[in-house]
C-alpha cells in the first residue's frame, strides 16, 4: 500500500461533504469534506504501488476545473484513472447538490 499526498489551490467554500464508492477490486471510495482556507488537500491510499505519476495526472486534470476548498481522501483498491475521475466527479456532484 502506498500513500500519496497532493495539494492544490482553491477559490471557494464548498456546501457539504460527500462519500461515494467502495474499496472493492478495481474501485475506490472518495470522501470529500469542506476545508478551511484557500487550499485543497488530497490524501490517497492505494493498494497498487508505483503509480504516483498517474495519480498526480488524474488530480491535476481534476483540479484544472475544480476550485473547492476541500479535504479529499481516496481509498483505492486498484481502480483505473477513468474510475478515479468518475468517483471524483460523483463526489463533487453529491457535495454540490
Amino acid at each position, binding site marked *: 500500500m502506498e500513500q500519496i499526498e497532493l495539494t492544490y489551490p482553491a477559490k471557494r467554500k464548498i456546501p457539504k461533504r460527500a*462519500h461515494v464508492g467502495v*474499496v472493492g477490486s478495481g474501485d475506490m471510495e472518495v470522501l470529500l469534506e469542506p476545508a478551511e482556507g484557500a487550499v485543497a488537500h488530497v490524501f490517497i491510499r*492505494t*493498494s497498487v504501488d508505483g503509480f504516483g505519476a498517474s495519480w498526480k495526472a488524474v488530480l491535476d486534470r481534476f483540479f484544472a476545473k475544480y476550485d473547492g476548498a476541500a479535504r479529499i481522501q481516496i481509498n483505492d483498491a486498484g481502480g483505473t484513472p477513468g474510475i478515479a475521475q468518475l468517483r471524483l466527479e460523483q463526489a463533487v456532484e453529491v457535495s454540490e447538490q
Partner: protein
Amino acid sequence: MTDKRYGANFIHRQSFIELDARERATALIDAGTSRELLGPFERVESPWLAMQGVTPQEDDGCVVMKGKIAGQAAVVIALEGAFQGGSMGEVSGEKMTAALDLAYADSKKGTPTSAVILLETGGVRLQEANLGLAVIAELLGSILLLRKYAPVICLSAGMVGCFGGMSLAAGLASYVVMTREARLGLNGPEVIEQENGIDEFDSSDHALVWAIDGGEQRFATGLIDALVEDDTPQVVEAIRRFVGEGVPTVHRSSQVTLYRSRIGALDTSRQWDPKELRTLWTAKSATEGKQ
C-alpha cells in the same frame, strides 16, 4: 414451475442486489426516518489492514442505520460484500455487536427494536483472524440476547452469499429472507473441495452449488422463512412483514429434537440429490415439530 425471473416484468424490476450496503439499508427503512451511525466520516477503520498493505475502508464494510421499519423502531446492519468479501473484522464485527446490544437495551426498556442484518459475507476476515472469530462469537451472543425481545431478521440477497461463521448468525435469526441468487452455508464449496477433494464437492459445478446452498432450496426445505425476487419493493415488503410479526414462539435453532431426529433418519452411505430433502424436510413438518 416456471422461472419468473425471465417474466415480462423482469425489466421493470428495481434490483436490490445491485445496491451497495448503504443503499440497501436506506431502502429498507421508512422514508425520512433513517440515520447512519458511525458513518465513514467518523473514520473508525480497521487497525489491522493497513499494516498488512491492504487499503482500509472508512466504514470497515459495515453500515449501521437506525430508523423505523413499518413504523416500528429498528436498526439495519448491512455488510458490504464488495469490500474484502464482506468479511468480519474487529471493527465491522464490533459495529454489529454494539448495534445489537443497543437495540437490546432499548427493547428491554420498552421500545422493541428489531434488527435487520444484511449478510454478504464469507465469514472471518483472515487478516484479522482471531479477532474476526471472536467478534463473531460475541455477535452471536448478542443475537441470542436481542431475539428474546425483538425479532432479528437476516437477509441474504446476493451475490456474495453468507458463509463461514456468519452462517450461524442466519441460523440464530428469528427470520431469514433470501433471494434465489443468494447462497447460505457454513462451508463454501471451494473450502470443501480444498479440504476433502473434488469428489466430495466440485466447486466449479455451479448448478450443484445453488442446488444445495441456494435460496430456493433453503426455502423449499423449511430452513428459511421467505424467498423473494431480486426486486427492492418485494424485499422491503418481506422485511416489513417480519418486523410486524415480532418475536416467533420458537426459534429454529432451538428446535433441537426435531432437527436431531431428521439428521438421524438420513442415509449417510451416499450423497443425496438435494431435491430429496425437499420431501423429507418440508416447511410444514418444521411447524409440526415445534415444541
